[in-house]
């Protein structure tokens, strides 16, 4: 075979790896009943593919070929090791007979395998940070180094989380299944929480200099798409809408120097119209289900913003109304704060300030920097400069993100210009 042909095959194997490896892994985990064995089998299958496909050509169904080769390699490996550990002979025999039925490899169970993998990685018996690491590693195929970089942790920390999670899946016997209808709502919530957490980690880094880390947000959007393809539940649709609508503002929310730009000051021509169109149509789809949850409501609010030509042209009455529904579906002080800001836009800053002061008086959001910066902003608009200064300073003391700190410092400086 010529060098060119070899290159072609290896490019093709790479392409198949990118498109199929997660599905092949998901099926191998089911067939072999073990994450580590499945990963080894996946690796072996691709090694054989590189050799064999350049000699014999690419099989008609590469995914089925890879599953079958991986399974064979795993059983073969067990047989070889059985020379030193007799118990493996029985295990290999069992595995061979229990997984020899090609029915188990049909498209439907293969599609289900990806859902099984997602639900297992997001099992509530695993700690939240392990759920995130497992999902990014096993479902998205990120390396531990990539995950560590995205979460500003050390690779050994991520690796250890994954090792412990796999040990718990094995020893506590977390099943590799799509949850029953009764458990589904709770279990789906856990999956959506992981997807949203990954998105937010990418969208607004919790600390450090970079406000957005694109890779993670893109990964979360891909996960959201996969999820509604496999399980089109209204809240999954609502979550995908929400992350698309938030992501549509990415180019407008930071300046070229990395400074934060508020929604009201953003250049709306920079918003991504394709993402907005997709997000809005997903919101409509989720709302038409009549089982409306918190993600869908937040997406509906984001859709109202996305469709407004300017802050003044925004339908604030509609936004307040949506926050009212959200307060009933999923009440929280943060939702109450956002509602107060919307009320300020509808009825004027004083109406909003009264509501924010009531929330702060209850002591709920005392250490939440956005509560103080929202209060500061309303005071500024009311001309209460001294109060605005105090609240901006409180907010500044509470935020860890450098772009947010710079934003608050600019606001404070602007106050001084006004008074002098």
């Amino acid at each position: 075979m010529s060098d060119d042909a070899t290159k072609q095959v290896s490019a093709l194997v790479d392409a198949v790896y990118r498109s199929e490896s997660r599905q092949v892994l998901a099926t191998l985990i089911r067939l072999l009943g073990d994450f580590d064995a499945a990963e080894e089998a996946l690796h072996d299958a691709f090694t054989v593919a590189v050799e064999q496909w350049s000699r014999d050509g690419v099989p008609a169904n590469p995914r089925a070929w890879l599953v079958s080769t991986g399974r064979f390699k795993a059983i073969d490996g067990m047989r070889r090791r059985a020379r030193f550990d007799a118990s493996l002979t029985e295990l290999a025999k069992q595995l061979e007979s229990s997984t020899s039925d090609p029915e188990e490899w049909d498209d439907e169970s293969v599609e289900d395998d990806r859902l099984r993998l997602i639900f297992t990685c997001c099992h509530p018996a695993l700690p939240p940070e392990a759920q995130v690491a497992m999902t990014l590693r096993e479902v998205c195929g990120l390396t531990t180094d990539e995950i560590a970089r995205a979460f500003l942790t050390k690779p050994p920390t991520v690796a250890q989380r994954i090792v412990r999670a796999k040990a718990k899946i094995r020893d506590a016997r977390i099943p590799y299944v799509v949850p029953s209808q009764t458990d589904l709502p709770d279990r789906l919530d856990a999956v959506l929480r992981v997807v949203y957490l990954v998105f937010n980690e990418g969208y607004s880094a919790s600390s450090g200099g970079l406000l957005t880390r694109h890779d993670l947000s893109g990964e979360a959007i891909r996960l959201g798409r996969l999820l509604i393809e496999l399980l089109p539940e209204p809240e999954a649709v609502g979550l995908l809408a929400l992350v698309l609508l938030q992501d549509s503002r990415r180019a407008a929310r930071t300046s070229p120097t990395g400074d934060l730009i508020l929604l009201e000051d953003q250049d709306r021509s920079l918003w991504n119209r394709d993402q907005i169109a997709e997000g809005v149509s997903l919101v409509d789809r989720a709302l038409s289900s009549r089982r409306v949850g918190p993600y869908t409501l937040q997406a509906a609010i984001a859709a109202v913003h996305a469709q407004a030509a300017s802050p003044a042209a925004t339908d604030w009455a509609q936004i307040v109304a949506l926050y009212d529904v959200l307060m009933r579906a999923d009440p929280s002080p943060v939702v109450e704060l956002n509602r107060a800001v919307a009320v300020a836009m509808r009825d004027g800053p004083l109406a909003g300030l009264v509501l924010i002061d009531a929330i702060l008086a209850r002591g709920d959001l005392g250490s939440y920097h956005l509560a103080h910066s929202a209060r500061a902003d309303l005071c500024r608009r009311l001309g209460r400069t001294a109060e605005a200064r105090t609240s901006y300073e409180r907010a500044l003391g509470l935020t860890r993100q450098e772009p947010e700190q710079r934003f608050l410092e600019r606001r404070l400086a602007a106050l001084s210009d006004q008074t002098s």
Partner: protein
Amino acid sequence: MKYMLLIYGDEHALSETERKDCYAESTQLAHDLNANGQYVAANPLHPTAMATSVRVRNGKRLVTDGPFAETREQLGGYFLIDAKDLDEAIAVAARIPMARKSTVEVRPVVEIPGLPT
């Protein structure tokens, strides 16, 4: 696979009537589990005031009153069950009456060979 379901809570949380109701409901649960082939054993425990701690150091037996550690939540009882996986064990744990008031800890049991059956 066997799972130990350990019931932790404030041992003074129940009134005498509530305790009796809890025992009755737990007994019914044990029968239901038994009918499903999931039951191995279950018992409530006397309060920690009835507990005695035993340690052996350098061959010498040290017997003291009370539990080893003072905590707000005490082990008040257990179910030992047979379940096919963690999800099944969690489903059983959620049916234990004390799960509504305190915490049930689900621990997979290590199967070691050679124990009497």
